């Protein structure tokens, strides 16, 4: 498995090699509040010894993925934990348990299985099997439904909500800055949906965290939708739904396992399991089938494009179109200019300018100027890939980053090129690059563009789910999250070299 650059650098390589630095096993819950000491017994277990001399064996510490993520040294391999917790085998075993429960008529043990598929996954499958992205999605839907999945949704649906929240957040902050009720510190706003980037920022650049948008990613918004709205409409509790998402990277597994997305009351996660594009392909092959031979079936209409048959996408790259939508919305809300999101993707006139910084497609600047005065109104950028991300952070720290908004992606070329996507038959650096480009083209050539406002299914959900409107006091818990700096463990080993 291959995580995105930032994650590989900050976390997982450390996790994969067992290290002596893990502090977790020491944090054993002690039973008494009074003074006592912890001793190691002859069996190797930890014993709590009170002043009176009575010894109680302490619970053995369990290291979870979350412990690993919140720590920089590690005793165990996050890879192993991830594979055990979040794999297609997990999904298969849940489906099997359902079949068994049905057969034995244990209805209370049945769980509704929901799978959310990302549009980047569809693009990757479509590229490899020479399909349209819609057909690729519908074949996955057929396979999943045949395997016993109850609902198949499109994460482009929840992405629309994520886009709306991002645009609203941007405009609010921008206005606050104008009236001076905000320190300059908040700008640029950095997009937040890429967990590779978030993980990296939390571990290595905590001072950057205030700049990061608080809006949840499409995956996590779908998580709330499924575990609240859908659960309510099905009349079941959130833990009776098993929610899987199919994503372009392993980093999304880390995101799903963040404690911020865990429901303590029902002991359930908004997204229970994440599998990558590669893993779902493997699942199909292991089931003795192949994408070529699958029939097609439509997604479920509740949470998908424009009603049940048509998938749609937002303007922009496989990063999701955040830059385009936020700019389009801000141009209208702040300056009364009508700038359609898809015109930003390919600007021609109207005060828009798109430039490749130092000629690299992964770092682009998009500026909006006043059509008459030529005054620069907005300055946005895309920053994809660890290398550009790194330079952006350096500029930001030295106060030389003059953007208003940056769409940040840890992977070069963004999510079309995620670490969990299908690989080309040839893996030379050149063919990998060409492949990534062709996946991007497949993604862009897919469904018609649609703005979040045009998403009728979303409008319907919103009117039921958040009737107060998303403009009014923000449904913060639903759409917003927060970030936590991770304390770096100092290298206590004093290694000479």
């Amino acid at each position, binding site marked *: 498995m291959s995580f995105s650059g930032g994650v590989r*650098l900050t976390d997982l*390589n450390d996790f994969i090699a067992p290290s002596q630095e893990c502090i977790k096993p020491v944090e054993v819950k002690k039973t008494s509040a009074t003074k006592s000491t912890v001793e190691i017994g002859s069996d190797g277990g930890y014993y709590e010894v009170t002043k009176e001399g009575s010894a109680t064996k302490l619970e053995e510490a369990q290291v979870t993925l979350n412990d690993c993520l919140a720590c920089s040294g590690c005793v165990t391999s996050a890879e192993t934990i991830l594979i055990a917790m979040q794999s297609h085998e997990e999904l298969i075993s849940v489906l099997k348990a359902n079949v068994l429960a049905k057969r034995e008529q244990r209805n209370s043990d049945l769980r509704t299985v929901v799978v959310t598929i990302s549009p980047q996954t569809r693009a990757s499958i479509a590229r490899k099997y020479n399909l349209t992205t819609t057909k690729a999605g519908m074949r996955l839907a057929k396979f999943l439904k045949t395997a016993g999945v109850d609902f198949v949704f499109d994460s482009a649906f929840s992405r629309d909500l994520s886009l709306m929240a991002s645009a609203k957040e941007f405009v609010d902050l921008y206005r606050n800055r104008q009236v001076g009720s905000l320190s300059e510190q908040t700008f640029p706003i950095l997009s937040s949906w890429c967990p590779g980037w978030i993980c990296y920022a939390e571990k*290595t650049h905590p001072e950057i965290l205030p700049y990061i948008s608080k809006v949840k990613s499409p995956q996590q918004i779908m998580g709330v939708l499924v575990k609240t709205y859908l659960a309510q409409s099905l009349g079941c509790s959130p833990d009776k739904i098993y929610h899987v998402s199919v994503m372009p990277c392993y980093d999304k597994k880390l995101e799903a396992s963040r404690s911020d997305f865990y429901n303590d009351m029902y002991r359930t996660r908004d997204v229970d399991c994440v599998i990558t594009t590669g893993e779902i392909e493997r699942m199909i092959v292991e089931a003795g089938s192949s994408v070529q031979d699958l029939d097609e079936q439509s997604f479920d209409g509740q949470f998908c494009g424009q009603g049940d048959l048509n998938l749609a996408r937002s303007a922009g790259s496989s990063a999701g179109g955040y830059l385009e939508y936020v700019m389009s919305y801000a141009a209208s809300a702040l300056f009364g200019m009508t700038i359609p999101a898809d015109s930003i993707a390919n600007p021609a006139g109207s005060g828009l300018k798109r430039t490749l910084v130092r000629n690299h497609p992964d770092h682009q600047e998009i500026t909006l100027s006043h059509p008459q005065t030529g005054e620069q109104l907005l300055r946005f950028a895309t920053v994809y890939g660890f*290398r550009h991300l*790194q330079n952006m952070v*350096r500029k930001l720290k030295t106060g030389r980053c003059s953007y208003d908004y940056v769409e940040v992606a840890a992977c070069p070329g963004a999510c079309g090129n995620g670490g969990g996507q299908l690989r080309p038959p040839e893996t030379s*650096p*050149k063919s990998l690059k060409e492949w990534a480009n062709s996946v991007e083209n497949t993604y862009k050539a897919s469904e018609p563009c649609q703005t979040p406002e045009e998403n009728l299914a979303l409008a319907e959900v919103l009117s039921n789910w958040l009737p107060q409107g998303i403009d009014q006091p923000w449904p913060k818990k639903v759409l917003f999250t927060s970030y936590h700096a991770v304390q770096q463990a100092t290298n206590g080993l004093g290694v000479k*070299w």
Partner: protein
Amino acid sequence: MTLILVAELEGHKDRVWQLSWHPSGERLASCSGDRTVRIWAPSDPGLLSADSFPEKPAPGAWKALDQIESTHKRTVRSVAYEPTTGKQIATASFDGTTSIWEYDEYQGYECEATLEGHENEVKCVSWSPSGQLLATCGRDKSVWIWEAVGGGDFDCISVLMEHTHDVKFVTWHPTEEILASVSYDNTVRIWKEDDDDWYCTKILEGHTSTVWSADFSPDGSYLVTVSDDLTVKFWKAPSVKTSSEIEFVPDSGSWDLAYTVPAQAHTRPIYSVSWSHHASDSGNHGLVATGGGDNTLRIFKTVLNGGRDKTGFEATLVEELKNAHGQYDINCVKWNPCQKYSCWLATAGDDGVVRIWYYTA
């Protein structure tokens, strides 16, 4: 005795890690656990052209010219002069940063840029021969490539994360933009740029333990690596025609292992290696110096053709000096990069001392 100790430079308050010669060959920079960089030069510049020396190093033959009180919070592990003008010095530190220092007549050395990015200890910094690129590597298993963007600043242009362990050392090919990195994962990796992206064109496998250091022959036709496995290995760069006429096509050829100096030659890990720029008649690739944990300084003479090995390559031990830094490890050996001063060798050790040697064959 053909290796003459000309000067002993004392001043560092902790072990000296690495040395770098000014491109003019007339100055030497050293970095240390005391977080400083010191610049040394002969008191009389004519000394470098002399060819006879007193039996004992004359005190004051070399002097401390300058000192960079670095802002690094931990050990300065690596130091490198910019190779075209020598106006800048790069330092890499265990504090995770790399700094670029420029000399100013009034202010002395000033920090022009601090390159952050490595997660933890930076182990080595190296300039490309053009001075346009900088490579760094470290404990986070990554190799970073930076490009000068003017004003003393650098942009990161690549982060290479293919080594599976601590990367110890990086060095550039003398004529091509090709980088070699060596690691605790026992491998040597060769990196190259294609269409704005850097990638690993070759993994050299053969060492059975940590590879500590590497150096290209001055014409770039060979790479020498030294390791914890006590061997010195010579690798032939692909598509080399003759030593003077090189056609370097890294993808099209293999980096064959040309020769291994057997393990018996060293008794402890070898930490440093340097290939001399000694004028070489064809077939003679000059001298290779090594130093390491067995406190011994060794010099090998290399032969390209007619050697005992089937490739025709051979390296023979011509000099062995025990306890070159007393009972201390030798952390760095460095030949003077200037042809006319190519008999000068500098060494640094855990004793905190820099020693300057003159070698006559």
